[in-house]
């Protein structure tokens, strides 16, 4: 900045103030003033953008996803949508699909096992594996393979096994405590 050519003449220099001090003041005003005038709208905008975080309406609750007779104890996985009210910006979407779970009930078992259908690797929805192999589940995006209990077949792109969810049976209803976990890491941490 100071390397800029400094002119020899100053308009309206008062005789008392030494020219160099006035000059410094002019430089300072120009610098601070320019910065401030752009920081005001820019800062406001960045605050708007960075501060806009989606708040979760409530913590995980038990959500009814199926009836018990929809999950026969044949050890086969079945996928059920999980419905709840969801806020999308300004809109309140009543009872829409917020995800899905696989329910499996082994012979004789009363309470099904619930697995989150979202792949812990990159968040794609895991599908059923095509043939009768070791793998029961296969993620279509990066081919992570999982067994019926949700454990992954290594080597796997997925950093952890499929996420189990708490499952409760009340009368004929099957309820699941639905929550999402942070993707791509080994630990199972609930998404904030």
């Amino acid at each position, binding site marked *: 900045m100071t390397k*800029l*050519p*400094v*002119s020899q*003449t*100053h*308009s309206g220099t008062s005789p008392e103030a030494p020219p160099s001090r006035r*000059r410094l003041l*002019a*430089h300072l*005003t*120009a*610098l*601070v*003033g*320019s910065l*401030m*005038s*752009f920081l*005001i*709208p*820019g800062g*406001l*905008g*960045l*605050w*708007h*953008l960075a*501060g*806009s975080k989606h708040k979760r309406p409530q913590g995980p609750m038990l959500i009814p996803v199926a009836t018990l007779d929809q999950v026969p104890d044949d050890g086969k996985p079945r996928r059920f949508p999980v419905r709840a009210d969801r*806020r999308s*910006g*300004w*809109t*309140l*979407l*009543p009872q829409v699909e917020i995800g899905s779970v696989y329910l499996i009930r082994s012979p004789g078992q009363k309470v099904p096992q619930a697995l989150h259908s979202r792949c812990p690797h990159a968040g794609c929805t895991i599908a059923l594996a095509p043939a009768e192999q070791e793998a029961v589940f296969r993620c279509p995006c990066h081919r992570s393979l999982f067994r019926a209990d949700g454990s992954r077949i290594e080597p796997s792109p997925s950093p952890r096994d499929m996420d189990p969810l708490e499952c409760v049976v009340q009368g004929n209803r099957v309820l699941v405590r639905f929550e999402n976990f942070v993707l791509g890491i080994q630990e199972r941490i609930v998404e904030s």
Partner: protein
Amino acid sequence: MNRLLQWLEDRIGFRSWLKQRLGAPLPGGPSWARTLPRVLAFLFLVQIITGFFLWTSYSPGENTSWESTYYLSYHLPGGAWLLALHRLAASAMIVLAVVHLLAVVLVRAYLPPRELTYWSGLLMLVVLFKLGLTGHWLPGDQKAYWSTQVVTSVLGLLPGVGEGLKQLVLGGSQYNHLTLTRLLAVHAGLLPLVFGLLLWVHLVGCRRHGPWLPPGRSRQPQGTYWPDQVWRNAVAALVVLGVLGGLMWHWGPHALTAPAQPAREFAAARPAWFFLFLFRFRQEFEHWGPWGEVLGALVLPAAAVGVLFLFPFWGKWRLGHGLNVLIALGLLGTAGYYTALAWYEDAHDREFQNAQWLAQKETQVALQLAQSGIPPQGARWMMLHRAEGRAWYLFADSCLKCHSYHDAQGRGYVHPEPSAPNLWRFASVEWVLGLLDPKQITQAHYFGNTPLKEGDMVSFVQQDMPEAEDDEGRRIFTPEALRAVATALAAEAGWPNLDAQLVEKGRRLLADDSSGCAQCHKFHDAGELGSAPDLTGYGSLEWLVGMISDPNHERFYGHLDSQQQTMPAFLVQPNSTNPAAVPHEVIEALARWLIAQRNRPAP
């Protein structure tokens, strides 16, 4: 840092360019007057910055534009201020651009070789108005929607090309999702781009020909652009931002009205202030038919701008210069006159004041409803189907057909010829005191324009009440006793902060069936139904719901003959003949709304 700058210097000559720009000598020295165009350029950058961030939250579309504008203004941090700054900076640009233009015309700065600079500036002013217009339309609220309708309809009247142009703007034959997606593309894409190109031409011209200086003033350079001119520019920019901030603080950041309702009237529709002159000006041509419309709203304004373009051609002659100054001042004066006229007329038009009040209340209802999440069908639907929205429209369409709703200062809805009592602060102490006043009871504020004017209550208040005495010959209805009755009734209605002793005393008078109110009225265990409305729970939620549902029930005005029963029943029933009748939940929402209004100082 130094090496990076040198690297850039070797590739694109950045350093020497910056040095040359910032170190440019200032012919005639630095000047405060020259900060004006620079502040304008700065405001354009402010619009780009704020506009970009607004764009990150705005969603065009028929049932997302209002919703997203609402959300960014009331839920996202800083959104309201960002939008207010964007809106006010647009207004400031128009004001400053007009001042700049006027200064240029007064000093003849448009003369060759600066014509192109002048013309690009004029075009920028035109683009500025278009930006203002399209920006005004984007929120998709009541004011935006009706402005869009009016402008595109006038556009459609243009001979030959009109209909095509209109459909191009609307993205179809009528307002739909595409109208707003197109508007956004034009407002945030095309117009800023055109403005930027024009600004570039403008700046290149300015640089090439240097600043305009008064004749005879030395062009001897004094000082350099940095810092001598820059610090002045920065101070001017901050002053303008400060003024805008002050205005925002004063007016509050919000300007969103209720979501557009195409099937309802919106009598408060007005264009943005910078188009108000045109709104009023075109009224002069209304009786000329469609051609007058085109002439007043399109042809004459376009011709006025066209004349401005011709200034450089004859400006070099004394007479031509005089003419130019006259035209410029004349145009500004005309625009100013019609703007002021529109303001003046609106300020003195009771109907418009009523419409504005309705618009304001409608907005409050919409904002309240939207708070708990807007249904997927959108805010329009929400207003028409949720009980609170329907209740508001029932109030606006049906209650205000006969009732007034305003305070003593005339704030609120002033019915020109009310045929029912004023409902503002109904069942409050003051309201009841007024009813019990022999003079006031027969005024329009109470029973003056109703069949009850000839009824028993009026004769009681005017004749019996002043003379009523107790066994010992003392006046019963002293001013203090009347206040007690009013207070006790207000207590029935649930008004807060009442004097408990007065309430107690008033209740005794209300329940007195030998000389008090219970002679005709039922009040809790005293009195009987059949000759006057029940005063038990008078003005309470339950009472209001009953009264609105069926005012001719024996509990209310069932004792009147059918000629005198002027208020219809609003509860929808199998045999109801009232087309405005609504389900119970809507009536309850209306009663709740009426009660909620009690806490407000003015309607």
